[in-house]
């Protein structure tokens, strides 16, 4: 047996839980962001903005936890037959997703500070404003926040597409090791 065999064959329960928790939280918070910024000013809009910001801070903390866990627990090896370019693409996508999971909430926090609206986590814990109020910088950071978000959405779609392609076309265990109830596609769920 070669060295990949010594790597775990599946993700830890913690890694799986964090993956899906963050995945759903990101999709929800992204959707909320898309919806709320078009609204005319109303108490509802102020509430949604606060909820979006609270969610962002919470996700940021879970991403720190996830990164720490990831550094301490090697993920399972990729299928041996996977071409080198696919390995590289998978590796790059994962690294970029981690970078964006930090950069997206961070850009939102900075944007809020520059726009003069402090982030107060759950209405209780005020986060320090790293930038002082500056309308132009606030508008610029809004663009940055948006671009980072759409980049992340694109990468998430690529990530999702790749996972489905591995499951349906390649029939390997890439998806099932993150969704253990699927079973191994090669062996079939009926067995």
């Amino acid at each position, binding site marked *: 047996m070669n060295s990949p065999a010594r790597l775990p064959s599946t993700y830890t329960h913690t890694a799986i839980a964090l993956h899906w928790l963050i995945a759903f939280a990101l999709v929800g918070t992204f959707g909320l962001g898309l919806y709320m910024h078009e609204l005319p*000013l109303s*108490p509802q809009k*102020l*509430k949604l903005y606060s909820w979006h910001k609270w969610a962002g801070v919470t996700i940021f903390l879970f991403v720190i936890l996830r990164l720490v866990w990831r550094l301490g627990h090697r993920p399972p090896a990729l299928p041996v037959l996977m071409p080198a370019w696919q390995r590289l693409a998978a590796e790059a996508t994962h690294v970029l997703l981690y970078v964006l999971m930090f950069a997206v909430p961070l850009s939102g926090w900075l944007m809020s500070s520059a726009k003069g*609206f402090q*982030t*107060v986590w759950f209405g209780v814990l*005020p986060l320090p404003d790293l930038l002082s109020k500056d309308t132009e910088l606030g508008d610029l950071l809004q663009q940055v926040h948006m671009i980072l978000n759409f980049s992340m959405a694109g990468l998430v779609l690529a990530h999702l597409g790749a996972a489905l392609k591995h499951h349906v076309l390649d029939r390997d265990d890439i998806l099932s090791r993150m969704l253990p109830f699927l079973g191994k596609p090669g062996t079939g769920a009926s067995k």
Partner: protein
Amino acid sequence: MNTRQTTLALATLLFLAPPAQAIEFNQFQPAKSSLSFVSKQMNVPVDGRFRSFRSKLAFDPAKPAAAKAELEIDLASIDAGSKEANDEVAGKPWFNTREFPVAKFVSTTVKPLGSNRYELAGKMSIKGKTLDLVAPLTVTQEGNSASFDGALVFKRADYGIGDGVWADFGTVANEVQIKFRIVATAAK
């Protein structure tokens, strides 16, 4: 006492003693004055201010009880934190600036509280409603100029500022922290 000594004594009286003619601060200095506030939205403090306001005042430190002050605020000059907010608060549920463009304060009494502190009381009119308003006042004199600083908690609902959907204090708090600094010089 010879003539020379008399002259010297007179000169001392004239130039070193406090002037018998009291100084009165009555020339409002808009560029040095400010009127700012902090509102709370979802418990987030948001800084705001009014850009345009005028004051007529007369304050003689020797006769503070006789002091008088008037303040007129152009409500449309508000900066409530963002352009979106400025447009919103000009509207009917808030200040309704089309019908009530100016808020006006007229003092009734100024009570000395010791050293340079005073209690300023008067009538505040906003949106067609006039209510009593009391604010602490600290007067700092610097040569020909005096600064009148104060802070108070203002309750927006008292004047019906933020009606209808905005009446819920859970989103925008009722209490608004107001800070003012009025600077006036003495007329020469």
